């Protein structure tokens, strides 16, 4: 364990270009996935929260359940889609960072949708009468709510980011862990583990955790400052 910590500090201190490349790609992939999932999932969650339609409760249960999608299953499904033998093979996306973004977006979309649905539904209780009185309903109401509770939604987004940066199953299958092209922190850790270099693997793991902590801390501070300003 001490050796792992030593490795971690050495890695960070040395500024090894390979490590920087891997970290940069990890952030790029996961942040892109979070962006994509937020663009799709926040409106989806808000719509389900505000609208009333047959099968709504089933959809809510489904969204909640899909939060637990196994990453390796998502990876496999996307692989089959993007494989040359599959329907979207011509796009040539397999084993590129693009495929990894797609897989992670699919993986975390339910998380962001389900959590935002909960947040918007809670807010709807407070806002519904006033908004309806002003003639604001449907899509307009959903978007208004989304913007108004934007700081609470940050938690949902961070949950998605956490899931994306932590998973290895999906990116390994659709990315192929290609050195210099699709190797991210989690797949690098898996590789070093399989080579038996456990202290290095653990060291990389500590670096990953530190990065995620830093991202979360930053987001929290932003949220605090904004809440103080906007009330």
């Amino acid at each position, binding site marked *: 364990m001490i050796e792992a910590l030593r490795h971690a500090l050495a890695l960070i201190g040395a500024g090894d270009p390979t490590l920087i490349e891997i970290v940069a790609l990890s952030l790029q992939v996961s942040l892109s996935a979070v962006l994509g999932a937020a663009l799709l999932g926040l409106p989806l969650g808000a719509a389900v929260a505000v609208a009333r339609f047959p099968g709504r409760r089933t959809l809510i249960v489904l969204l909640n359940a899909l939060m637990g999608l196994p990453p390796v299953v998502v990876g496999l499904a996307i692989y089959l889609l993007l494989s040359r033998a599959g329907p979207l093979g011509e796009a040539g996306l397999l084993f590129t960072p693009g495929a990894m973004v797609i897989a992670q977006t699919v993986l975390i979309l339910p998380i962001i949708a389900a959590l935002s649905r909960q947040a918007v539904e809670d807010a709807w209780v*407070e*806002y519904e*009468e*006033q908004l*309806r*009185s*002003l*003639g*604001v309903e449907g899509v*307009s109401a959903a978007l*208004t709510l989304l*913007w*108004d509770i*934007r700081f609470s939604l940050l938690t949902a987004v961070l949950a998605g980011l956490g899931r994306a940066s932590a998973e290895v199953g999906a990116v390994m299958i659709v990315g192929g862990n290609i050195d210099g092209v699709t190797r991210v922190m989690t797949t690098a850790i898996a590789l070093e583990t399989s080579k038996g270099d456990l202290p290095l693997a653990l060291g990389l793991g500590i670096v990953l955790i530190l990065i995620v902590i830093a991202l979360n801390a930053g987001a929290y501070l932003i949220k605090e400052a904004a809440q103080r*300003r*906007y*009330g």
Partner: protein
Amino acid sequence: MASILPLALHELSFRVHGRRIIDRISVEIERGSSTVILGANGAGKSVLMRLMHGLLVPSSGRIAWNDADARRVRRAQAMVFQQPVLLRRSALANVSFALAAAGLPAAERASAALEALRSVRLSALADRPARTLSVGEQQRLALARAWALHPEVLFLDEPTASLDPGATREIERVIRAFSAAGTKVVMSTHNLGQAKRLGDEILFLHEGRLAERAPVDRFFTRPASAEAEAFISGELPWT
């Protein structure tokens, strides 16, 4: 353009789980005077207001405005609730939001919003985040937002129930000003003093029924119904 008033309620009922919250109310709300809906807590005042404003659907009976155009009827009303619900934006932006929802073109919104804030003496706080204002200021802002739409009918559901006497006085001043400017005020309260100060006519609700309807002076000096009499004498005179 014709007014959306009078509003006719005919045998209006509202039931929840079999319980009658509003029990066969028939009444006509006319132009001109300000109407105060008075009653104890649980009498059905808030539910009646929401039925009239269209936020609730009646279980039976009819609500008929003087205009067949549902959109115009909706646009000609506004409501202020007991707890102000404001967006996480500036005070001015909250009013602009309502104006935008009503379809006012962008170029006219800013000046209309500022004018509304001026009418409730909140101009100085125009750029402050609405949610950082005091409760009294927030309620004034809610009033400004409602009035900015120049509604024909302004519903107010116990607007000062959460406020201290100073803020209450300020809100009452604004309401009186709106009423004087021609807006039909329909307000619910359980506060006798406020009813006397602001109402021209009283609709007294008791357990979901319209127990009595009278001009304000007659209601307080010679209440016709036993329930009204009991209610009036139960309240302390200085509230």
